[in-house]
């Protein structure tokens, strides 16, 4: 009966509606099929461990959490993370903005060479950078030798291990990430809007302050959030270039998980990080959408 009705002429248009529904359902499931490997990976690699982490963190109980908040290892690292991430974000975004502007405004050659340099910096593995900064910044490294040879300083500056080396390396690491959101906004700016401002009497500085900066601000905000999120996750750079006092939250997680083998505290600290990063990521995605 049903078969007959669907084979018969489509008088009411019902069968075509039904066909569309079937196609839509098939499209949905077809998509899901493609996503299956990724979903499986996410379930096994992210959702499951995250679930375990959350459970472990709650095993700590109220007293455990209270202890954590009075644990100077945690509070010190948390403070370090906030201060370092904020400072690095500000410096990196400023550097990225000027570099992006140079690429944007540069001629074909400047544009191509600067972009290549940025991409190289972007693709170089962090371990290579660490070795390079070690060679550059240690007491008998390139910088100190040079400054002493020039007579600028008498004894070596203690840059490594410590905050200076760590911060320089982290800034260097995040600048390429900050360039792309800013540059993508800049290249879409209509040259004629600037010309209009000029013709209305705006000096180069006023064109920048009143036109270019506000119009590239979405890119700046996106870049800042992205950089901050990356900063909160730094582990290798503080571990290798910083002193024990300079460690960040990710290093505290590692300390508890790998050396003290206290997975409950490790999970609790990790959860704090995940929540902060999660909130910032949502904000970043909103900001990023605003740049389009």
């Amino acid at each position, binding site marked *: 009966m049903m078969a007959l009705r669907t084979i018969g002429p489509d008088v009411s248009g019902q069968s075509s509606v039904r066909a569309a529904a079937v196609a839509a359902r098939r499209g949905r499931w077809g998509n899901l099929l493609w996503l299956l490997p990724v979903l499986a990976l996410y379930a096994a690699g992210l959702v499951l461990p995250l679930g375990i982490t959350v459970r472990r963190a709650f095993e700590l109980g109220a007293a455990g959490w209270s202890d954590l908040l009075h644990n100077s290892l945690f509070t010190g690292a948390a403070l370090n993370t906030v201060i370092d991430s904020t400072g690095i974000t500000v410096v990196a975004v400023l550097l990225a903005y000027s570099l992006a502007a140079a690429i944007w405004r540069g001629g074909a050659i400047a544009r191509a060479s600067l972009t290549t340099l940025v991409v190289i910096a972007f693709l170089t593995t962090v371990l290579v950078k660490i070795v390079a900064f070690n060679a550059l910044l240690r007491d008998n490294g390139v910088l100190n030798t040079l400054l002493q040879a020039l007579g600028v300083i008498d004894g070596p500056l203690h840059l490594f291990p410590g905050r200076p080396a760590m911060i320089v390396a982290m800034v260097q690491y995040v600048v390429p990430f900050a360039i792309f959101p800013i540059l993508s906004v800049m290249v879409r700016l209509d040259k004629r809007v600037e*010309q209009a401002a000029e013709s*209305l009497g705006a000096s180069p500085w006023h064109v920048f302050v009143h036109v270019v900066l506000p*119009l590239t601000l979405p890119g700046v905000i996106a870049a800042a959030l992205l950089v901050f999120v990356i900063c909160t996750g730094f582990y290798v750079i503080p571990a290798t270039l910083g002193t024990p006092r300079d460690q960040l939250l990710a290093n505290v997680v590692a300390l508890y998980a790998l050396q003290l083998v206290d997975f409950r505290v490790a999970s609790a600290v990790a959860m704090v990080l995940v929540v902060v990063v999660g909130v910032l990521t949502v904000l970043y995605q909103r900001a990023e959408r605003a740049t389009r």
Partner: protein
Amino acid sequence: MTVDDSKVTSAARATGAADGARDINVTGLGKRYGAAHALHDVNFTLRDGEFLTLLGPSGSGKTTTLGIIAGFVDPDYGDVQVGARSIIGMPPRRRNLGIVFQSYALFPHLSVAANVEFGLRMRKVPAAERERRGKRMLERVGLADFAQRTPAQLSGGQQQRVALARALVINPTALLLDEPLGALDRRLRQQVEIELKGIQRETGVSVLHVTHDQEEAMIMSDRMAVMNAGRIEQIDTPTNVYKYPSTRFVANFLGEANLLDVNVRENDGARAIVNYADGSSGAVHVSSAHGTGGSGSQGTVCVRPERMHFASDDEVAENAVCGTFVSCLYLGASLRCIVQALGQELIVTCSDHAAFTSPEPGALVRLAWDAADGQLLANES
């Protein structure tokens, strides 16, 4: 505009007009991009209060000319003067010229009011006066109720008017319009053309307008300069450019033209006696002040399709040629006929009236026109 303001302005203009202090003089302007001449020896004066259009196809140099006057493009040679003062090398912000771009180039992050007040803000005009003048300008373009909106919330036509208000509020020496109507649809465009012309007449501001649309140029301009390949081919009132085109390019670019090869027999600089390809002789007006050939030389005569008419065999005419009727299209208000004559297809348009009956295809016909309607064009160099 209040009564006092208009008095002040007209007084300023009256004195300005007397000594040409607000005229923009363009002399010998040239610009090269690599080996290509984008501009070649461009000369004209934008007179105070005048609406002058640079009309030409894309690549003819009109936008480059505008860019040089605005200060966004540096010329390779030549000069641009306001009054007697050269503005070459002066940054755009000191030139006091209002510019309206085809893309409008409004500040998307600022309200309509802030857009209009931008130029006054840059001139450090006090906030109260800024607001007053901005509001007045928005009223003039009919957008007073839209002051707090952002450009994205306006239609294309409204954005265009905001751009116009923003450029006018600074009392510019001249308004430069770079294809400002290009992004508007046909019907809106005609309305804006009339509005724009009205605003220009009210404010008395000089306008240099760039377009490739001949109708737009005809409707709005006091004078128009027809540009081709980096040169100005002709500069005159729209009527004169249409009626008395000086070159083949101008004749073809503006409306339709029948271009006839002729032998010039006599040429006194105002009137010429010519021989057409079929040997018949006729009298024509000498259109170009310079560059037309003397007696014995080859030349080109332009006759507009609506200036030719079908003549009876006994009609006495200053110019008459015989040909074969090919076809006729009925266009409502007019008829567009094709006649094979002088070894080419001639276009004849006639208005649709009862007396006219279309000849049969293949019939022999006689075409005639007055001496004033044939124009001897300048020789191509």
